[in-house]
């Protein structure tokens, strides 16, 4: 899997701190380094899709393990960039390089074997098309 170019900003802050509307915490959290797809998965995706990518809620949060929809990388890229249903979009939280890294990671782990690399250019292309 391609490593993310160190030149890309690998530090993430929380989403822009707007006025608090929901009953949410105040303050804001420090930037976090997410140097590769495995880290992006562990620190973000696993919250809902679980550490072993089995999903939950009887498929309401879909399993990413052995998921045939991952065969075409454009589909998971689009879901990550635009969100789907209750899943938020990550185009603000993640750089295109990080999206490419995590999609590449999922496609080559958890019983998925789609070794064709996913690039930053793929992410930008899909994001452009989805608009």
């Amino acid at each position, binding site marked *: 899997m391609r490593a993310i170019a160190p030149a890309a900003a690998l530090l*993430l*802050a*929380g*989403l822009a*701190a707007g*006025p*608090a*509307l*929901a*009953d*949410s*915490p*105040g*303050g*804001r*959290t*420090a930037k*976090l380094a997410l140097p590769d797809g495995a880290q992006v998965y*562990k*620190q*973000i*995706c*696993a*919250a*809902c899709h*679980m*550490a072993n990518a*089995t999903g*939950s*809620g*009887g498929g*309401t*949060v879909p399993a990413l393990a052995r998921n045939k929809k991952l065969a075409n990388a454009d589909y998971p890229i689009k879901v990550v960039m635009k*969100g*789907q*249903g*209750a*899943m*938020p*979009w990550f185009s603000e*939280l993640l750089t295109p390089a990080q999206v490419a890294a995590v999609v590449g990671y999922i496609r080559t782990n958890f019983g998925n074997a789609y070794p064709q690399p996913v690039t930053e250019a793929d992410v930008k292309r899909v994001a452009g098309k989805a608009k």
Partner: protein
Amino acid sequence: MTDGMAPTRRQLLSAIGKAGGAAALYQAMTALGHAAETQFDGPPKLTGTKAGASVVVLGAGLAGMVAAYELEKAGYSVRILEFQDRPGGRNYTLRGGDTFTESDGTVQKVGFAPGNYLNPGPWRIPHHHKSLLYYCRQFGVALEPFIQMNHNGFIHSSEAFGGKPMRYKEVATDFKGHTSDLLAKAINGKALDDRLTAEDQQKLLEALRHWGVLDDNMAYTSSIRVSAQRGYDRAPGGGLEGAPTPSQIARLQDVLDPQVWTAMSFYFSYVMQTTMFQPTGGMDMIGKAFAKQVGKSITYNAKVVKVAQNGKGVTVSYKDITSGKMAEVKADWCVCTIPLSIISQVDMQVSPALKAAMKAVPYSGHVKIGLEFKRRFWEEDDNIYGGHSFTDQPITQLSYPNDRFFTPGPAVLLGAFARDLAGFQLAGMTPQERIEAALTQGAVFHPQYRAEYLNGVSVPWSRVPWILGCVSSWNEENRQAHYKNLVTLDGRVVLAGEHASYYGGWMEGSLLSGIDAISQIHARAQAA
């Protein structure tokens, strides 16, 4: 008209009220800057209900129960189907002996001492959430103050003040002082001559001198006067050694850390302003109070699988999750409060526009961690009574218990309240890892943590099986495209819940939405 002849505001309002009635009075008060605090002006007045009219309500959270309560009062026959074995939905409380099962089957057992609790969901009530306060008053739910703002809470940034936690009063005073100093310099350096008259410049300088506690040279420097806001090195005392000594102000560079102004602006937010309240004994007192009114109409352990409708009525199919048996409820109308995050589990016979709206709202995944300690060291050692501390670590926020101050024995503090990236990070951990993170990170404020720790429980909302998320998060784009479709009566089915309001994530939103939903049903039923 001279000033002397102008009617007082009260005289004017009284005259408007007499002439135009309550609605005109309300409108006039709003125009004069009063009363624009809520859209709640009392419970709905549903009259003339047709005999035998019926409604099935899906979900026994606050939206569903307020709908059922007001419908029953109006003469409707009501059934409520609830997936869980208790009322309240997100309005609930974890106490010692309770268990919490995550969506992957991981079970946590709560080990808190009697009387201690964690409110995993809603936990504070702003003074302007008048419908919630109305029903609390109506049902006799005891409320006590929620200490929202505590000047003695901590602010921590790993990138400022050498990583040392500061008291809110210190950094807020210093932010105000340093920015006043800079603005005064800008005025005296003639940088604002084209914006302000000489007279207004003098007024503003006078304000900055006092507001920013500047010295004779209009500079922000350490002094006893400044210490009277940010706190002293040695506090004022009595007798021979009574004289206080000043504290040292922080550097401008540290004070500009975003953790400072995000905390200050947090307290300015409309929904975060004092006065706030909490139910004595735990937030679920509210859900239980509603259930006391409508509990006989609730069927628990009912998993709704299908909502079908035609011109005559609604048929809801559900599975009794204890026996596995399927059953049906028929009614004239349906109020569906099932969270959008799991509504894909239900086969809903509704219009394409409503279907699209149901899929258009992402959910946030807040995380809360409750930690029980042997004693209230934050009170005894650190002079913190309720309120919050903020950090840029993933735990994000600490909140101290607002009840039973000064009592001996174990107490529970909120050891993490995280959203966004930090929320994902904590949710992705095992319960043991979350507690470990909370103890390690929280020790930056309170080195007493390890020695005093007893037990803890963590609630990652993205792994709460009956919702798989915490609160709906609308933005301007999806609000514009889908909100109206989501909240409009669709044939005989109408959605309600915090997601169907402009008060997302607040109980007030659930109640106002529930009331609006049944008002739509009643209007349609009367028109038929």
